[in-house]
């Protein structure tokens, strides 16, 4: 999952007429037209998923991609996006579902819904009561990726298992020389800090936010960069040694590091204090031109073999319990992709924030980064 990387989002914006959405084929056409307009994250679907769907149903897929939640949120809030299926992160979904952006799903058209993981569906109800507007697609965690060789040199141990590696000035100062990066994603990073500080209530307490801000400010001198994309390559090439990041990105860094000319070891850990957990969902905009085809597409995505093939390609855990036997063995056994039950109990779904609190978080983040 590529979340919230403003520069790339800008690029997308400039290339594809920002904000003013869609104008895609089918905005005005009748629902009978045999097309479904899908708007998904980049690199977030299986290699043959679309072709398989077209072969099976005869519905043509018009496929379009984005790389930030902000982009899809702005398009949907502007209205008449022309899309039939979108993949917002649950926190964004919750905010938009409240103002009627999404169509309530018709379960009678989604027989495969029974394949979904009840535990994840239950956690999703915090965002989407009764799972009315969306199906969970993929999920993951925010944790720490690190280079065990360099960490051994800096700390005398090659194991990191706590947020203290990033947020405790005593430890972070030792790691500063080999390089720490932190996601440039205010809400995700503050959630991690709050878990470290033990304030996981998410009750939007501004004093707790100030405490979290102070905690990040204390380690600010030891953070080399606030970055949501380039740190993957930096970690994989040994340019930095510790990254607060999403598991998917860290698995990419691990794969790249392993296949480099001089291999670089990268590990991902969900810290023992717990970690934020995110879900990406699939939903249908209320003004979707082809709602029937959109339901057919969602149902197809909940087919165990289909979603397992997608997971195998993009290396993210899906939310489909029945798909597990079809997921590659090395992924199933990897606790950084599919954590065991004990670890899953320590994951905290990211919360949807109120407008005022979200503004306060973003403002605090700017203060941490720029000192203003």
């Amino acid at each position: 999952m590529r979340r919230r990387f403003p520069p790339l989002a800008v690029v997308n914006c400039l290339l594809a007429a920002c904000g003013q959405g869609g104008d895609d084929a089918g905005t005005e056409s009748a629902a009978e037209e045999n097309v479904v307009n899908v708007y998904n994250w980049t690199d977030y679907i299986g290699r043959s998923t679309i072709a398989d769907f077209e072969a099976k149903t005869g519905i043509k897929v018009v496929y379009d991609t984005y790389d930030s939640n902000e982009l899809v949120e702005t398009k949907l809030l502007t209205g008449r996006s022309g899309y039939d299926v979108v993949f917002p992160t649950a926190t964004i979904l919750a905010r938009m579902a409240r103002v009627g952006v999404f169509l309530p799903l018709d379960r009678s058209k989604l027989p495969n819904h029974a394949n979904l993981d009840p535990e994840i569906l239950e956690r999703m109800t915090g965002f989407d009561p009764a799972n009315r507007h969306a199906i969970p697609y993929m999920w993951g965690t925010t944790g720490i990726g690190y280079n065990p060789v360099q960490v051994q040199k800096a700390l005398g141990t090659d194991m990191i298992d706590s947020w203290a590696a990033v947020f405790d000035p005593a430890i972070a100062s030792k790691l500063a020389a080999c390089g720490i990066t932190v996601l440039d994603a205010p809400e995700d990073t503050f959630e991690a800090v709050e878990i470290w500080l033990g304030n996981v209530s998410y009750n939007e307490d501004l004093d707790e936010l100030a405490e979290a801000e102070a905690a990040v400010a204390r380690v600010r001198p030891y953070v080399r960069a606030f970055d949501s994309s380039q740190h993957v390559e930096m970690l994989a090439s040994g340019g930095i040694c510790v990254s607060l990041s999403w598991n998917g990105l860290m698995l990419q860094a691990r794969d790249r590091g392993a296949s480099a000319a001089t291999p670089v070891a990268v590990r991902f850990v969900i810290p023992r204090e717990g970690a934020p957990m995110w879900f990406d969902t699939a939903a249908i905009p209320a003004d979707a031109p082809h709602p029937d085809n959109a339901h057919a597409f969602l149902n197809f995505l909940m087919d165990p073999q289909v979603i397992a093939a997608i997971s195998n390609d993009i290396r993210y855990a899906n939310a489909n319990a029945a798909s597990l036997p079809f997921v590659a063995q090395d992924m199933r056994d990897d606790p950084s992709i599919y954590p065991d039950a004990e670890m899953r109990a320590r994951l905290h779904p990211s919360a949807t924030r109120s407008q005022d609190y979200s503004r306060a978080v973003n403002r605090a983040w700017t203060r941490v980064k720029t000192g203003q």
Partner: protein
Amino acid sequence: MSKPFLLGELLAWIRAHGPWRWASQGLRARGYSGRTLVTAVPYLWLALFFLLPFLIVLKISVSEMQLAMPPYQPLVSWISDGVIALRISFENYLFLLEDSLYWKSYLNSIRTAAISTVICLLIGYPMAYGIARSPAAWRNLLLLLVMLPFWTSFLLRVYAWIGILKNNGVINNLLMALGIIDEPIVMLQTNFAMYIGIVYSYLPFMVLPLYTAIEKLDQSLLEAAANLGCRPVKAFFRITVPLTMTGIIAGCMLVFIPAVGEFVIPALLGGPDSLMIGRVLWEEFFNNRDWPVASAVAIVMLFVLVIPIMIYQRSQGQQLGAHR
């Protein structure tokens, strides 16, 4: 000035033959002519592509944020039959005053743009001078070289700078291979990289107007100055610079104005502490989803830019008038 061709002739024909004859005579009596129509085109263009978007943004900037589609409250609402309520809120503008972030970002953007403009001028003037004074056969080629980068996407060129400046990029690898440095110099995500990006991207906009101005310069004036014993440096500052001032101003405007609102280059090349108003605007719009405050930021930026330019143009106009 000659009569505007084609359109003017067409109008003449309509005047002579068409049923519009009476009307057009009436218009002409009031001082309208084909020329009015021709000059109306740019005004129409401005109204359509500047004034209209400006009014829309202005409207959003005085509304209040709400979670809805679109995410702001309508200004005009029907309360009951016959009663229309108009809500105009200046809270967004007051909000910009409350938080020092905004005026600091404005100042920082203006400073960044001003420094970039000066660097562009210092590099661009000798370039333009060199091109204008080179043999006529070379000039077109040199000008072509100035414009050649436009054939590639602006974004790709900025991305190329990432490859050049990063820790294991072209420059650092070269310096390390030569043994000049042991540790890579951190250049990417610094102000240095941001200035390189801005100056690189906007340099052609400085060179082209300067070239036009310098090329028109009457060489015999410099010869006369030399004959009268003026040294080249003094002649440059007393003759060349004043006579090419229009080019300098045009070039500086073309660099300064877009550089103030620049967002892409600081985002890709600048450091996390580079505080630019374009970035603040982005964050208001996309991260805070607060279209009204984002619109207010944009409107204020427009006035911060437009008013000094208008004052300047006025004084320029008066000076020109005085010279006549």
